[in-house]
């Protein structure tokens, strides 16, 4: 039988694209820190993002009357939306200030890091599993990969990849999203912070991200969790600042060895127009260890 002695060259890979794609996929899975796929995608998607934001970047004088009117309208909408968000945030802050003060002074009074306000320019994802949106702010505005994204004081997601002027936000319903959380009881403010129930929030790729129903993982069996309790982020991993509101516990189902906790998020992700990217960087390992040691002392 005659054997085929084809050499493995770049030309061979071009003739066998499926093998090349499998290698790319394997590299992406095995070496996630290289982020090969993300970099390629960013290069491709940015023209689309720029196209959708073209009018905002064209000099005002060059636009037609209709385009100017559209631009003015978009700017006014953004401003109104910003003011409404701020208004709602302030009202919420005023109404909850006293309760949160007595409930958890450690995080309720902690100021949030500086934020960059951004407009959502594209919502949705071509896959039925993943959930993301694109915003009109990027590295030029100080945004980096992994930064938390919020609306008011509610968590929306994190920056997945940042271009110069645009960034992709991974929403909290995406299966790749995870955040350390604590569960607090608004009716029992005098709980020892050390005994609060900790959990991990993971997106489940829910196909309906309207007031998404999420699940908390790693809740031990017998933990004192009941419907109506609030879920907020924890700074255990350093990824998110403590005290960002996530949602409310709706249901608890005891399972073998753990407690299944279903919750409803605070935000309707599809109606979001304006977001804030918190300029919060995940601390390096050494800094995180020092902070933990200081806290124990």
């Amino acid at each position, binding site marked *: 039988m005659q054997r085929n002695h084809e050499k493995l060259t770049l030309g061979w890979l071009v003739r066998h*694209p*499926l093998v090349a*794609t*499998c290698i*790319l*996929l394997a590299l*992406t*899975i095995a070496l*996630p820190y290289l982020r*090969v*796929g*993300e970099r*390629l*995608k960013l290069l*491709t*998607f940015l023209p689309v993002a720029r196209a959708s934001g073209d009018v905002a970047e064209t000099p005002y004088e060059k636009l037609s009357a209709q385009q100017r009117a559209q631009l003015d309208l978009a700017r006014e909408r953004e401003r109104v939306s910003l003011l409404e968000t701020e208004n709602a945030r302030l009202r919420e802050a005023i109404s909850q200030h006293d309760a949160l003060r007595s409930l958890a002074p450690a995080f309720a009074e902690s100021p949030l890091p500086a934020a960059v306000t951004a407009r959502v320019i*594209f*919502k*949705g*994802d*071509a*896959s*039925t*599993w*993943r*959930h*993301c949106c694109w915003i009109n702010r990027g590295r030029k505005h100080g945004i980096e990969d992994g930064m938390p994204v919020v609306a008011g004081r509610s968590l929306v997601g994190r920056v*997945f990849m940042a271009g110069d002027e645009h960034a*992709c936000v*991974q929403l909290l319903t*995406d*299966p*790749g999203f995870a955040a350390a959380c604590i569960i607090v009881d608004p009716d029992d403010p005098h709980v020892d912070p050390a005994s609060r129930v900790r959990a991990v929030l*993971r997106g*489940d*790729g*829910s*196909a*309906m*991200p*309207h007031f998404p129903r999420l699940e908390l993982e790693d809740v031990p069996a017998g933990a004192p969790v009941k419907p109506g309790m609030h879920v907020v982020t924890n700074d255990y991993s350093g990824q998110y600042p403590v005290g960002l509101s996530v949602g409310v516990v709706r249901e608890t189902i005891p399972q073998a060895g753990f407690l299944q906790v279903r919750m409803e998020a605070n935000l309707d992700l*599809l109606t979001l127009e304006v977001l804030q990217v918190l300029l919060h960087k995940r601390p390096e390992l050494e800094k995180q260890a020092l902070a933990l040691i200081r806290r124990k002392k």
Partner: protein
Amino acid sequence: MTAAARAAYPRNREIKWRGRIVIGGGVLLALVHAALLHHLKLEDFTPDLYTVAALFLGLFASRHGRYGPSLVFGLIRDFFSLGLLGSYAVLYSLLHKAAGRAREKFDPERVGNVFIMAVIGTFLVNFGYHVMLALAGDGVGWSRALARCAGTAVATGPLAVLLFPIWHWLLGKCGAKRSGPFWNI
């Protein structure tokens, strides 16, 4: 593609529309998925229109393109998605190969066969995607994934029955020629 199959369906020099259908159709469907389908509030029963189109390519596109068009079609979806680059490309290439085998036994012009192929194809593609998610550490749990994939597949089956005749008609209107059971695309 085997030599016998090449001989059975000689290459038509007038192959056209392939690039436009794969790239234009792919981008259009990706935008429809991203901008429209997520907003329909169908929960787990959101149809997977993109996979129906990939199945159509796998069943009816000229065999001379091999799995290339399906791979490019999948890559376009990957580029418009947050997931691993290449996952849909590999899945649609495999779907192309599976569709090629399936059409040898089942006539893809019959409504019942189209429905069954669409349901099975959509289920396998979505479940395969979840397998890749799980490999990357982002799985949502096997029972939940099975339920979701089944829901998507059931919602997609009737859509394929509706869309396949429309696409055949459109290709005919566009002047694409048929070479045996395949369109010259």
